[in-house]
């Protein structure tokens, strides 16, 4: 039997699980998340390894979902000095790279940028008839070489249509800056929309030092226990990346936490299409799984105040949780969005405090029970019944509306409830075909990390000039499948999990934009390693 460890860093806890090759949970642990994140990860790994009696050398894979990247951006810490190179001239001069960024973030990454000739039109026709101009590129790259810059982001106009300009400049950069100099190509992470894609690439470039640090820390901790496992990071679409890949694309780890929770929760129920509500102490995260993967957000997402368009899971967060504060104002009862959080076991009325919380209301109505020595329902006797009733319907309403908003169509689908606050929704949810409350949902997030798959995606405008629509669709599907195999998937398991044709206004009908994604199981699974 071989094993894998899944680790997920949450706001409060860092969870770790050990799974066997059938994805059954062997051992799990919860350990507090630390300020530096790293020591919390190490503590969780050591904790779970100490608990188990399996053969440690049979642990072959470690999957880590971490918040390092987000923290680095928000705290402006450990960020690399970057140069943003935009291949755009003779277009693209009106707004410089990083224009709308906060000054402190600009300062943290160095605010260095260059505009070069090149890039193309929507149909691939060159913007600058000669393409890249070698002398200009060499001059800029030499300037970068002799500056403090540690990492560069290259963004070319319409690179999601034609990536050759970014690749060509990358080659030149490698010659001048060295083979190992970190280079981010925008077409590999962002979608159409130059400023948002460029910002995504720039943030990615600024994060290249972050992954190395955590990977080394984790490798050391594992080595102490004689574990020689391959380390993967989980990305925010519920799939995996190798350390090498993660070093290149650290930004794709952002948002992996909620994704891991959602996928783990769904895995516990065996459902592939469902809505997952993760109800915590302060807030509720709601996401939707389609063919086992979280749906992507279709709008631009702000990270640390920067508008980006790299893929992110579509998550709706509402300020309802177990500790949400209940208020009455002129007969109107509201719940949240502020919360007593983890102080619920001393501040809420049932626990002897003086703040009325959402949990208090459920307890008073007899809809929930808590076995805790300090919890006494008798303390709730003096609360007006109409306040309790209104608070419960307020919660019910907020959750139902959010569940409905995450749907794309009217059909009823199952809703999975997980998290410590899930007692807030004791009954049915409007629009749910069934409400599922899986057992052992405590380690859903780490489990979600451990079961992650390999994927590839594509967002590209295709011309149907001289080709049939079917041929173009096939071309797109072939490309995305190849991308997935390149990312490390077992070719026999690769499946298209998303496919969308997006209409474009004010263009002739012979171009189509296709967004698609494929995923498959990690190649080289159990067999070859079992006879070690």
């Amino acid at each position, binding site marked *: 039997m071989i094993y894998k460890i899944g680790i997920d860093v949450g706001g409060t806890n860092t969870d770790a699980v050990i799974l066997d090759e059938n994805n059954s949970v062997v051992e799990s642990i919860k350990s507090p998340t630390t300020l530096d994140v790293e020591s919390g990860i190490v503590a969780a790994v050591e904790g779970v390894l100490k608990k188990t009696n399996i053969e440690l050398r049979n642990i072959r894979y470690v999957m880590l979902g971490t918040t390092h990247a987000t923290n680095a951006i928000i705290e402006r810490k450990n960020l690399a000095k970057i140069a943003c190179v935009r291949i755009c001239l003779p277009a*693209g001069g*009106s707004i410089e790279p990083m224009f709308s960024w906060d000054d402190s973030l600009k300062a943290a990454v160095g605010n260095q940028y260059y505009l070069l000739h090149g890039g193309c039109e929507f149909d691939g026709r060159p913007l600058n008839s000669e393409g890249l101009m070698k002398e200009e590129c060499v001059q800029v790259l030499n300037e970068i070489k002799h500056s403090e810059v540690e990492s560069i982001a290259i963004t070319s106009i319409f690179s999601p249509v034609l990536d050759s300009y970014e690749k060509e400049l990358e080659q030149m950069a490698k010659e001048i800056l060295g083979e190992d100099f970190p280079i981010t190509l925008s077409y590999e992470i962002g979608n159409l929309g130059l400023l948002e894609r460029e910002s995504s690439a720039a943030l990615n470039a600024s994060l290249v030092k972050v992954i190395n640090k955590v990977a080394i820390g984790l490798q050391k901790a594992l080595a102490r226990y004689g574990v020689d496992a391959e380390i993967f990071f989980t990305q925010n679409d519920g799939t995996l990346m190798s350390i090498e890949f993660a070093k290149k694309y650290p930004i794709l780890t952002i948002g992996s936490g909620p994704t891991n929770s959602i996928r783990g929760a769904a895995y516990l129920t065996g459902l592939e299409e469902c809505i997952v509500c993760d109800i915590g102490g302060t807030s509720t995260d709601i996401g939707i799984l389609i063919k086992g993967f979280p749906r992507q957000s279709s709008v631009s997402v702000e990270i640390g105040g920067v508008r980006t368009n790299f893929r992110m899971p579509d998550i709706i967060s509402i300020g309802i949780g177990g500790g949400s504060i209940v208020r009455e104002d002129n007969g109107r009862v509201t719940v949240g969005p502020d919360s007593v959080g983890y102080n619920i076991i001393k501040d809420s009325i049932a626990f002897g405090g003086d703040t009325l919380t959402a949990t208090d209301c459920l307890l008073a109505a007899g809809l929930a029970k808590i076995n805790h020595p300090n919890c006494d329902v008798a303390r709730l006797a003096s609360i007006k019944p109409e306040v309790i009733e209104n608070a419960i319907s307020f919660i019910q309403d907020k959750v139902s509306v959010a569940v409905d908003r995450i749907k794309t169509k009217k059909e009823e689908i199952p809703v999975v409830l997980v998290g410590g606050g899930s007692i807030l929704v004791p009954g049915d949810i409007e629009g749910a075909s069934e409400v599922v409350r899986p057992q052992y949902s405590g380690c859903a997030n780490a489990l979600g990390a451990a079961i992650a798959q390999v994927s590839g995606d594509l967002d590209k405008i295709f011309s149907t000039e001289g080709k049939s629509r079917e041929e173009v669709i096939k071309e797109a599907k072939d490309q995305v499948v190849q991308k997935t195999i390149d990312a490390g998937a077992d070719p026999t398991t690769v499946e298209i999990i998303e496919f969308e044709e997006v209409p474009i206004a004010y263009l002739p009908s012979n171009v189509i934009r296709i967004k698609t994604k494929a995923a498959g199981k990690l190649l080289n699974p159990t067999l070859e390693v079992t006879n070690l």
Partner: protein
Amino acid sequence: MARWIGEEDIEDLSIGAALFGTGGGGDPYLGKLMVQKAIRKYGPIKLIDPSEVPDDELVIPTAMMGAPTIMVEKIPNGDEALKSLRLVEKELGKKAFATMPVECGGLNSTIPFVVAAYTGLPVVDGDGMGRAFPELQMETFNVYGVSGTPMGLYNERGDHCMLNALDNAMLEHISRGIAIRMGGVAHVALYGMTGQEVKQTAIPNTISLCMKIGRAIREANQSKLDVIQTIKETTKDSIYGEAIVLFKGKVIDVERRSTDGFVRGKAVVEGLDEYENKNLLVEFQNENLIAKIGEETVAMVPDLISFLDLETGDPITTEGLRYGYRVTCLGIPTPQIMRSEQALKIWGPRNFGYDMPYTKIEDIHSVKEVHR
């Protein structure tokens, strides 16, 4: 009368312009950044009332035409529309006194401000659509006899042309083709006209109204006031009529398809509160065209039909509309200048394929007309 426009005014403009975009017109976000950048570099911009333009002076409106989705990828240099304006000046042999928007809804509300920042020209507070429309002959300028010709077109590369057409419908038709070949977007200057023509044909004060509404939405949001109420009050004091709430509900279906370069489709909204057990249907061609509750038509083009987020009051575009959104559907009576017989021949329901005469939104809702 004249006022100086700074970065915050442009922020407000982009919100108001999204509402007046009636679901289309392109996201003003990129235009907003371009103006803010230009203001940082060249200083504030002068916005003048149409009455401040001397009768014999020349005003040349500027705009972008083509696919906004292309423009957000191939971002401009900022001087393209200005170059087109220079081209028209040269053709007419006269310098422009000011520039002006052709469309106050969506992205095109911002383009003249970029031109103005670069040149120091003032922007005339008015436009020719009073909202967003899909085509360039859909202009009060055209309705009341101004020629769009000569028209200057530039792309980011510097490819350009001077287009002279015999009528404005042909001007639209030919320039649309050129815009596609120019890479999907052209930055244009057209409908050059005298100050006197501006006063006769432009819809006055639409830009300052967009800013006022944008500010009202922003401030109402900050102080948790009723956004819809503030929009009603603001529109009531304008050449538009008081906004009417057509419907409140949840989007249950959105259908979009791309034909001949337009995004056509419909949205179905299921009623909430007093609209329970009713469904609203809104059909669109880039912009929202017609709203029906059951069999009854409750608003139609050229009156403005816009969706707003039920809670925040933020305008929602047809592209952003999705299942499950809680929305208010708002109708705003269009100004009288857009309701004349000649005007309705250009943008009445029949021009969008609806075999029915235009009925004013106020008449449908039998609200007393407050204005003129």
